[in-house]
């Protein structure tokens, strides 16, 4: 089965489960590989063993390490990326917005809007201040251009992924 892992910046990881060998009721071997630019790489065998109610895994059937007990993962963590996990299908409409669209990266409250529609902004300008988790975050533009639309108001509480402003 194919699994798609997609993070908030639309980085995509495709992992294929290519083989399943059931050695016993307590020991299963899986073979995974990843699809990068049409080529399959990082081929690895993973052994899973159940011991005292926990899952242990190994790459060589000799050295074992415990896997944190978790729900069937809908989210997977890799250092500073959180991937959403889609098993067997790839969702549509997940491509990143145009670079002139400012989306919230985390939920927060709009404290101050520094620009209005029609203003000229330069790359790196602070256009908006968003308060989240006890601190003020300056939201900066990544493009030069003119503010086309402001979709939020000061005091608004926003979810993650909300379109705040468009710059053309």
């Amino acid at each position, binding site marked *: 089965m194919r699994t798609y892992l997609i993070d908030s910046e639309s980085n995509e990881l495709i992992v294929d489960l290519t083989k399943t060998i059931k050695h016993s009721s307590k020991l299963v071997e899986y073979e995974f590989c990843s699809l990068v630019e049409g080529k399959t790489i990082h081929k690895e065998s993973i052994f899973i063993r159940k011991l005292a109610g926990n*899952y242990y895994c190994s790459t060589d059937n000799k050295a074992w390490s415990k896997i*944190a007990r978790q729900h069937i993962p809908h989210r997977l*963590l890799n250092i500073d990326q959180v991937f959403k996990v889609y098993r067997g299908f790839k969702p549509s409409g997940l491509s990143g917005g145009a670079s002139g669209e400012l989306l919230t990266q*985390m939920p927060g409250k709009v404290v101050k809007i520094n620009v209005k529609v029609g203003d000229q902004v330069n790359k790196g300008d602070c256009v908006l201040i968003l308060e989240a988790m006890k601190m003020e975050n300056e939201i900066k533009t990544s493009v030069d251009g003119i503010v086309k639309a402001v979709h939020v108001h000061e005091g608004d509480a926003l979810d993650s992924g909300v379109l705040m402003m468009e710059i053309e």
Partner: protein
Amino acid sequence: MNIRLDKYKSKRVMIVNRGEIASRVAKACRELGHTSVGLWTDNEPDAAHLEFCDEWVHLEGSGNAETYLNMDKLVDLAKENKIDGVHPGYGFLSENGVFSTKLSEAGIVFIGPHNEAIKVMGDKATSKKLASDAGVPVVPGTSEAVPTVKKALEVSEEIGYPVLLKAVAGGGGRGMRACQSAEEVQKQFEAVVRESTAAFGNGDLLVEKLIVNPHHIEVQIMADKKGNIFHFFERECSIQRRHQKIIEEAPSPFIGEDEELREDICQTAVKLARAVNYDSAGTVEFIMGADKKFYFLEMNTRIQVEHPITEEITGVDLIICMIQSAFGEDLQIPSQDWIKKTGHAIECRICAEDPITMLPSPGVVTGFETNFPQGVRFDHCLYRGLEVTPDFDPMVGKLIAKGLIRDVAIRKMKAALKGLYIEGLKNNIPLHKVVMDDPTFIEGSYTTNYITEVAPQDKIEKDINYVSIYRKLAAAEARNMGM
């Protein structure tokens, strides 16, 4: 006879807080034989701290202003539930003199210092004045609020750049900005006023000289109502980001073997506590320059996040002492000489944040597991399914490791970090791992500029670890197969 009975009567303690500290206080109440009453709110019905509370009370409302900051409602709830004492934890109303006054007017004990101490120490201007009157060295700067940008610029000119803009009512890193030049003062002034008005309802600012390459060293104080004041040695909290601590140590590696300096800083802290007739747990924060001269920064009139490292090296339970002190009981500490420090303890704050940018990152914990070596303590509020929301601070746990010497504590911390698995939620464990391997940290010569100058976050390996991803997917497959 009645007095004696009353003294040992089991009390009803309401915990006006959540998360890790609420669990910690509830466990202390259990140990003392008091009944702990925990609160839950509409936006956190699955509050994990309730696990340790004897009674659960619904605090209606969803935002913090409606719930944990709503003094009148909390006082009414306490009265309704026949509460004897209220423990505020840290943050929220822990350093709010109005709240403690309202409680005492209702005949309820506030588990913390007396109102006067909170008021004097909660205001940076008056605390600074009190400290200098008591003969405690203070940082050069204004002792009164600076009303305008113009005045702030004048003062900055006088004491010389870099300067620090500080909210009078601030704390925990909020409402503080460093400014290297006049332009920055101009730019930041309004932001700090806005931030502190929103957070503390007080937009007054102070201007202070910024000590370059400083060490943040604080002394733990514990006092009872009979005038006994004890110190519990110092903690070094120099590893900070955005003026918020992330790693703390006790004792300070910067003070090291210099027992004379240690005695001096600890006695100075006791002197200050005595000047306000202090009667609870508190922390006197100092800033220490490279020349080992120290200046009083502020006094926190509450239990602090990093209190466990002091508990680990002294073996005294500070939360229990705090409760005993509030109810006028004996602290069960015969004298200062009985408080000895042994070993070295390190605390890593585990936060729901991006390990590289260090920005808060809310999310859901999909997996959680611990596997620690001897000598490790983990105070936390984590569980599988926990949703970390932007309403609260991103700290989800405190990992504390203790060893006889510092090297052992570091070794144990490294092993503990390896044995702490949090899945599905971005967290700063990778950052802590890098810091524990960093030569500057191991040497113990870091300053508060560590995160910006040494930048351990740049050494975090970001590459995708395919095997680790395969492992997690394989476990999911196995579960799906019904294994």
